[in-house]
C-alpha cells in the first residue's frame, strides 16, 4: 500500500441479481487530492462502478477501501453514516429536496451524516462556489448551471475524503463544462479529497492526472 493512497479498490466485481454477467473492475489507487477520470461509453458499467465506490451498491467481491476502512464490508446504518461523512456525491441529474432552500439542502447533508449544523461552514461553502446570494432560494428555481454548483457545494459541505461525480458536465457547453471541471478539481484539492469522475465526456480527458478508459478495457465477462 502506498502511503498517500486514500482510495484503493482491489478485485472489485459486481453481478446484478438475476443476471449471469459479472462486472470485473480494474483495481484503482487514488492518492489524497488525486484526480481520476473513468471514461467510457454508455452501458460500459460506469454508473455501476461509481455506485460501488459510493457504497450505494454492495460489491459481489473485492475490496473498496477509503483511508484504510474497507467500507464495502460495512452494512446498514454504519455504511450510510460512513458514506454521508466521507463521500461527497455529484449526480448526473441535480437532485434536491425541493421543499428546502439552497442553504437548507446543504444543512440536511450534514444532518443526515450525523454532523452538527454549522451555519458558518454552510455559508463559506456557498461562498467558495460563488453562490452566496442563492442561500435562501429554492433550487428548483435556479438554472441548470446554478443547480450543478449547488450539488457540488453539497458534496463538499461535509469535508469528504472522496468526491464522486457522475457525468457532471454532460449537459453543459464547452465553457461551462471546463468551469465545472476546474471547480471540482480546485475544491477537491483544497479539501485534500480524492476526486473520481465517471463520464463519457472526452473534453475532460486532459484535466485529470489518472484516466481509465473503459472502452479499451474489458471489464465484464
Amino acid at each position, binding site marked *: 500500500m502506498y502511503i498517500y493512497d486514500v482510495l484503493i479498490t482491489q478485485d472489485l466485481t459486481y453481478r446484478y441479481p438475476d443476471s449471469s454477467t459479472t462486472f470485473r473492475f480494474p483495481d484503482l489507487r487514488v492518492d489524497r487530492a488525486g484526480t481520476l477520470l473513468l471514461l467510457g461509453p454508455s452501458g460500459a458499467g460506469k454508473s455501476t462502478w461509481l455506485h460501488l465506490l459510493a457504497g450505494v451498491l454492495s460489491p459481489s467481491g473485492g475490496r473498496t477501501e477509503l483511508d484504510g476502512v474497507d467500507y464495502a464490508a460495512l452494512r446498514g446504518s454504519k455504511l*450510510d453514516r460512513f458514506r454521508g461523512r466521507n463521500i461527497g456525491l455529484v449526480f*448526473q441529474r441535480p*437532485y434536491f429536496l425541493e*421543499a428546502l432552500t439552497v442553504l437548507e439542502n446543504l444543512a*440536511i447533508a450534514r444532518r443526515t451524516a450525523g454532523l452538527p449544523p454549522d451555519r458558518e461552514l454552510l455559508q463559506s461553502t456557498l461562498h467558495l462556489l460563488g453562490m452566496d446570494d442563492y442561500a435562501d432560494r429554492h433550487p428548483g428555481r435556479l438554472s441548470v448551471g446554478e443547480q450543478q454548483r449547488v450539488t457540488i457545494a453539497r458534496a463538499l459541505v461535509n469535508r469528504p475524503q472522496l468526491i464522486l461525480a457522475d457525468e457532471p458536465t454532460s449537459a453543459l457547453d464547452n465553457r461551462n463544462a471546463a468551469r465545472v471541471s476546474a471547480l471540482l478539481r480546485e475544491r477537491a484539492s483544497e479539501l485534500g479529497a480524492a476526486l473520481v469522475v465517471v463520464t463519457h465526456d472526452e473534453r475532460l480527458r486532459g484535466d485529470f492526472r489518472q484516466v481509465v478508459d473503459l472502452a479499451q478495457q474489458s471489464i465484464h465477462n
Partner: protein
Amino acid sequence: MSLFSLAWRNLLYRPWSTLLSVILAALGAGLISIILLLNWQLEQQFDRNLAGIDLVVGAKGSPLQLMMSSMYHISSPTGNVPLDAVKPFLNPAHPYIELGVPLSLGDSYRGRRIVGTRPRFLELYSATLAEGEMWSEVMDVVAGATVARELNLEVGDTFQSSHGLIEDDDLTHREAPSFRITGILAPSGTVADLILLTPNESLWAVHDTHDHAAEDHQKSHYDVNAPLTDYTDESITSVLLRFRGTSVAGLNMQRSINENTELQAVTPSIQLAELYATVGQGEQILRQLGYVVVGVSILSIFIGLYSSLDRRRGELALLRSLGAGPGKLFGLLLLEGTLTAVAGALLGLALSHLGLALIARYFSENYRYDFRALVFLPEEAWILLAAVVVGALASLVPARRAARTDVHQTLAGR
C-alpha cells in the same frame, strides 16, 4: 434541520394535497368532537338541574313540555291546575313527600322567566342570597345571579312583567303593579341563576289586574308568609316533588296521578332517559358519519403520500445517498402522514369549539343557558391520540415503499 421540520416543510411544499387531507381529518375529528362536547354540555345542564326532583305534577299535556317548562324553564307550561287539586302534595306532613315546591309560571321580564314559588325553592338548588333579602310582600323579587348581571338589576329596582317568555312591549302588563327587587342570589351554576323568583301571589296579583282591570287591586289580601294551602279558588302551574326514601312510592304515585286525576305526573329521570335515547339516535348517526369521514381522510392521506412517491423517488434516493438509512425514510413518511392527521384533528377540535361557541350563543340568547365553549374533555385528548394512530396507519404502506427506494436504480436514472 430535524426529520420533523423536514416532514413539516414537505407538507407545506405541496399545500393543496395536504390541505385536502387536513380538511377531511378536521371534518371527521370535528364532527366526533362536537358530538362529545354537546352531549357532555347537555347532560351537565340537565343533570345539574335535576336537583333531586323525583316528580313534577302539572296539567295534562306533553310530559316533556311539563318537565322542560317546570325544571329547565325553556318551554311554555302545559297549562295551570287548580290549587285545590295539588294541595295534598304541599302538605309538609305527607308520608312520602319530603318537599313540595309550587310553581306559578307565565310571565317574564325581558325574556327572563318570572317564577312564582315559595322560599323552599332555593333548597332544591342549594341557592343562597348574595345581597338584599328574601321577599316579604307580594311583588317582591329575588333575582338569579346571571339575570341580575345581564340585566344590571340591583336591589330596589322595579319593573313590570310581560306575558309569556317573549320580549315584547305589547305584552307588558302595564296596568299591573310593579315588581321590586329585594335580593340577588349568589351564583349556583343551576337554573336558579337564570330566573326571577317571586311569591306565587305576585303572579296572581298581576293577573287579577289583567283579568279585572276595573278592580282596585289590593296587595293586602295576599299573605306571602302564609302556607299556599290557605288559599282557595286559585291556580298554579306545577309542583316539584322530592320524596322521602325510596322511589317505589314515587312510581306508584306517578301512575296513580296519571290514571286517576286530571293532573299529569312526570318522573324527570325517566323523561331524561327517554330524551337521551331519542337524541342518542341522531347522535349515533352523526358519530357514524364522523367515522366515515375519518375513513375517507385515511384514504386521502394514503393516496396523497403514495402518489407523491414516484415524483419524490429522486429526493428519497438523494437522502439515502447522503447518509439517511431506510429507517429515516420510513420515519419521514410516517411523520408526514401523522402530522397531517394531527393537524387535521387540531383544526377539527378548534372548529368544534368554535361551533360550540355559536351554539352556546344561540342557547344563551334564546334560552339563557350558559354553554361553555372553552371546556376541554379528556375524550378530546383521545381524539388527538387516535389521529396519531390514524396518520401512522395511513402512511404505513407509503413509508415502507419509501424505505425500500432503490438508490442505485434511481440515481442511475433508470
